[in-house]
């Protein structure tokens, strides 16, 4: 781990206990040369905290950096697994999680009786657990060779991880009701898969085996090496029968040139090998090719077990031992028999640490053990016999499970494996017992009215939210939280940037999916204002309309009104025209939009008049003017500017463009306007002082000419 990395495995949210003595202080590495005088902090999304470190200001100009900004991601999870793999697990666990949630709600909707719920439920959880397990599988270590290496004792198919080991341990104890009867055997298999993980904190049988295998090429006479016998008795003590038999067959007496003069010795070796391969096991079946005889029913097993034990005893008392002149072989083989006979001392010597001793008890001393309580007592006994030298996160979990303390288990997995594990493993815990279900689903005032299940899902969603590549799956977990999930989802969506269009669309899509209309409306408003202020008026109006922000749209319409009657350049007229187009006619609140549309038509034809002087265009403009002046939606304050704009039309050279009645209409409006001027709060339009009189004169002239024409 680099010095710049905070050990994210140990910084955990929401542990059960409070202990100030164990407060973790993490270094925050920076490269400032001067002392830090001030800090500033800011939360980004989720668990990501940004810290600014400000150095004391320096008077010299080449003082170097004045401050550093550092991002700290908190409570990530398991340091054993890298980021990319975490993301793979995070994405892969979404589907099983979502399926289980939908099944839960389907079942609770369908049947009200809790008994049927209990009956079927664990099967769903088991399926879920299996899917997660397959996800946690480490990288495969290449295909196994076609030709078996006779000297290869330890085989490895995949790199084991503590995470998967912990998950399987919980599955064994809480979910898989079918194999409850042969739970000890499942633990034997579990240790066979994961014993190597314990090598990090103590000596293990797996470690011894690997060391021995590495030395194998250098050993001349294998049965003379005491380690050969030691390693075999160890492997036998934890039930790795295949390995022991394979190792026994490496015994020198099997070599063709020696067979004749070591016949008896070889017979003894083979007898032990046969006994080992015939060991009765209380389990449905073992993996293909594995040694041992499996029995599903307990009576059959007991019968076979007793017969097997009597065979061992018989061999142990056999007179052949005296005739065997190889002392190493004699002692070694008889020690193997002692292991099989369940001699506590032999088992204790053979195993390296308490979990191995514990497993050996299941195999050779108490193969019928049932009940977690007695298993717990046995574990305590084994810990006394082999006090642990260090603590391993898997043993902590195992003791928690055996102690039947849900809170301890939760605290262990939370501390050791992080938020992903807790959020997903809660399903296993609650499948195990009603008591755990009550504990975990009980809503607590101290937690703000939420249950522990919800709290842990929120915590996990926070972790997902911290990363740009995973925040999109946070909503799936948040929506499974009844009380506070939506609140956090709203905050998460609100904190997404609107700058990038595809992200904006994704946000809106998430809002639509979860019916968060008010949030999407807010996001669209933010986008609208952003674009408007950044000069993209069209995009601005579009998003403001999408968000139905009448307030801002009114203001924009108001700004458009403000340019009525002002002489504007062609360029800005085009923009103005485009905005009116965008605002559309359906946006009611702008009210005067109908007017704006008519005004645009009028302005357009007027422009044509100024450029082309054609009488047709002028007539069209007059038509627009009359429509505008007749329309009640045209604000009074624009009457004068409109008429002033039309002076050229009113004074048209060739012929009067307005009929008598039209001229009268305009004159009446002018009169009305003059009256309105007398009222208080009247705002004078921004026109030259002689505007009114020149309009009046033009209208009078036009009236005269129109009367003559008619």
């Amino acid at each position, binding site marked *: 781990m680099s010095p710049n990395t905070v050990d994210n495995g140990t910084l955990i949210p929401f542990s059960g206990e409070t202990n100030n003595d164990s407060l973790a202080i993490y270094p925050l590495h920076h490269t400032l040369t001067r002392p830090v005088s001030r800090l500033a902090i*800011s939360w980004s999304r989720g668990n990501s905290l940004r810290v600014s470190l400000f150095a004391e200001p320096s008077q010299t100009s080449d003082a170097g950096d004045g401050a550093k900004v550092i991002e700290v991601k908190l409570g990530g999870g398991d340091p054993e697994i890298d980021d990319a793999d975490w993301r793979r697990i995070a994405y892969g666990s979404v589907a099983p999680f979502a399926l289980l949630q939908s099944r839960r709600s389907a079942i609770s909707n369908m049947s009200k009786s809790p008994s049927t719920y209990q009956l079927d439920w664990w099967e769903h959880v088991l399926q879920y657990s299996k899917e997660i397990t397959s996800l946690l599988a480490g990288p495969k270590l290449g295909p196994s060779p076609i030709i078996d290496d006779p000297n290869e004792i330890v085989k490895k198919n995949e790199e084991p991880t503590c995470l998967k080991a912990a998950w399987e341990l919980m599955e064994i104890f809480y979910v898989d009701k079918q194999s409850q009867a042969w739970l000890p055997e499942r633990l034997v298999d579990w240790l066979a898969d994961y014993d190597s993980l314990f090598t990090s904190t103590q000596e293990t049988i797996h470690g011894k085996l690997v060391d021995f295998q590495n030395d194998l090429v250098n050993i001349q006479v294998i049965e003379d090496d005491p380690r050969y016998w030691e390693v075999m008795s160890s492997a036998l003590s934890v039930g790795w029968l295949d390995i022991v038999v394979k190792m026994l067959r490496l015994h020198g007496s099997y070599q063709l040139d020696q067979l004749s003069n070591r016949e008896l010795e070889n017979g003894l070796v083979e007898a032990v090998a046969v006994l080992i391969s015939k060991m009765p096991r209380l389990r449905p079946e073992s993996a293909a090719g594995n040694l041992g005889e499996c029995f599903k029913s307990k009576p059959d097993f007991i019968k076979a077990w007793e017969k097997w034990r009597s065979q061992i005893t018989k061999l142990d008392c056999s007179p052949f031992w005296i005739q065997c002149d190889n002392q190493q072989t004699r002692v070694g083989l008889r020690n193997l028999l002692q292991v099989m006979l369940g001699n506590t001392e032999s088992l204790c010597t053979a195993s390296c640490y308490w979990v191995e001793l514990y497993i050996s008890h299941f195999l050779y001393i108490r193969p019928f053990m049932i009940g977690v309580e007695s298993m717990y007592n046995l574990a305590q006994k084994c810990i006394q016999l082999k006090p642990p030298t260090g603590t391993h996160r898997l043993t902590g979990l195992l003791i928690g499970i055996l102690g039947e303390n849900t809170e301890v288990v939760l605290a262990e997995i939370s501390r050791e494996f992080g938020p992903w594990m807790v959020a997903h493993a809660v399903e296993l815990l609650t499948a195990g017992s009603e008591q755990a279900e009550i504990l975990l689903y009980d809503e607590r005032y101290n937690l703000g009215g939420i249950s522990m299940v919800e709290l842990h899902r929120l915590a996990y969603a926070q972790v997902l939210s911290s990363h740009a590549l995973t925040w999109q799956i946070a909503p799936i977990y948040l929506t499974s939280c009844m009380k506070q999930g939506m*609140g956090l989802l709203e905050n998460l969506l609100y904190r997404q940037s609107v700058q990038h269009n595809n992200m904006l669309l994704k946000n809106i899509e998430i809002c639509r999916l979860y019916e968060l209309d008010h949030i999407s409306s807010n996001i669209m408003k933010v986008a609208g204002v952003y674009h408007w202020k950044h000069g993209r008026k069209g995009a601005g109006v579009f998003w403001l309309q999408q968000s139905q922000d009448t307030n801002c749209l009114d203001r924009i319409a108001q700004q458009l009104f403000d340019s009525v009657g002002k002489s504007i350049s062609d360029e800005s007229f085009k923009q103005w025209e485009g905005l009116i187009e965008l605002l559309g006619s359906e946006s009611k609140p702008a009210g005067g939009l109908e007017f704006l549309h008519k005004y645009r038509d009028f302005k357009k034809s007027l422009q044509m008049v100024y450029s082309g002087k054609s009488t047709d265009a002028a007539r069209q403009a007059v038509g627009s003017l009359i429509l505008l002046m007749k329309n009640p939606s045209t604000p009074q304050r624009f009457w004068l500017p409109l008429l002033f704009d039309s002076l050229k039309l009113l004074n048209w050279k060739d012929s009067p463009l307005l009929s008598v009645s039209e001229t009268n209409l305009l004159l009446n409006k002018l009169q009305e306007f003059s009256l309105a001027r007398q009222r208080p709060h009247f705002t004078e339009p921004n026109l030259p002082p002689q505007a009114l009189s020149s309009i009046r004169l033009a209208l009078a002239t036009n009236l005269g000419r129109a009367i003559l024409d008619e």
Partner: protein
Amino acid sequence: MAKELLSLDNGTTCSSWNYSSTRLATGSTDATFQIFDFKDPPSSSSNSLRSSFKSKVHEGNIVKIVWFPPEYGDAVACVSADGIVSLLEEIVEDSQPLQWKVRKTLGSSASKVLDVQFGISSTRLKMVAAYSDGHMRVFELLDPLELTNWQLQAEFQNVIESVSSFGKALCLSASITLNPQKGGSQESCFLVGFNSNTPELNSSKVWEFDQAHQRWLPVAELSLPEDKGDQVYAVAWAPNIGRPYEIIAVATHKGIGIWQLGLNPDHNGRLPVDRVAVLSGHEGAVWQMEWDMSGMTLATTGNDGMVRLWQSNLNGVWHQQAAFEPTS
């Protein structure tokens, strides 16, 4: 995991991230205001911050930068040590390129602005400012697209008994926090505490706008009777994602108080308050307190130069979860 994002110039004194943590505004002793943006969309791996604007604002040392809510565009308030607040926004105007422009300034040497915060209520933007003479002023933005037009909505002192007024008050600092609730229909409320020579002003109080009488009323005081005169260093209102009560952190020299504020007022209109924890850890003053977006973790900085994180455990007991110590 810790990662260095950016180095800043000599003399930089404050920084502030926007709502989406994609833009950083910084201020320095020589009144330089600078903006940094992430160059690429946040999903790309090699994302780095680039300076997109740099200019001098007003004069004097910028000590604090507060972002506007994003509904009002990209805009900030820069508070300078001499008590002047400049409101700046990033805008395209009259076919000029995109740039930050000063829209308004508040405060004077006689009446310095100590802190300013923004909140949205009834679809209006409100700006709450605390002044060195112990006064609070609440401004409303008249036009949502124009950050120049502000109307003074209210002016009052941070005291429960409104008859008393403290003319000679001298305040060193003030801290305002608004209820971070989303959705504009509700009237917003805010909390303010002072660090002054006038005990009555100091204790932090929750103010709520009373629609019926069109005035701000104190609805809660977050201080035990014996602590009322304590100078307040910092306050922070936690986001509420569904708790049946609000949580507010108040820092004084006695430590960081975690307060629960009930949602239902009693017959006097007061909200029930309960101090559920006093957290000690920072020796001396607390500089800043920030809640995460779930309102469950409080991050604080203080005189001891540490960053500390606080959480409540499953039994509701608040404790320090972790601490970070800058080391070179």
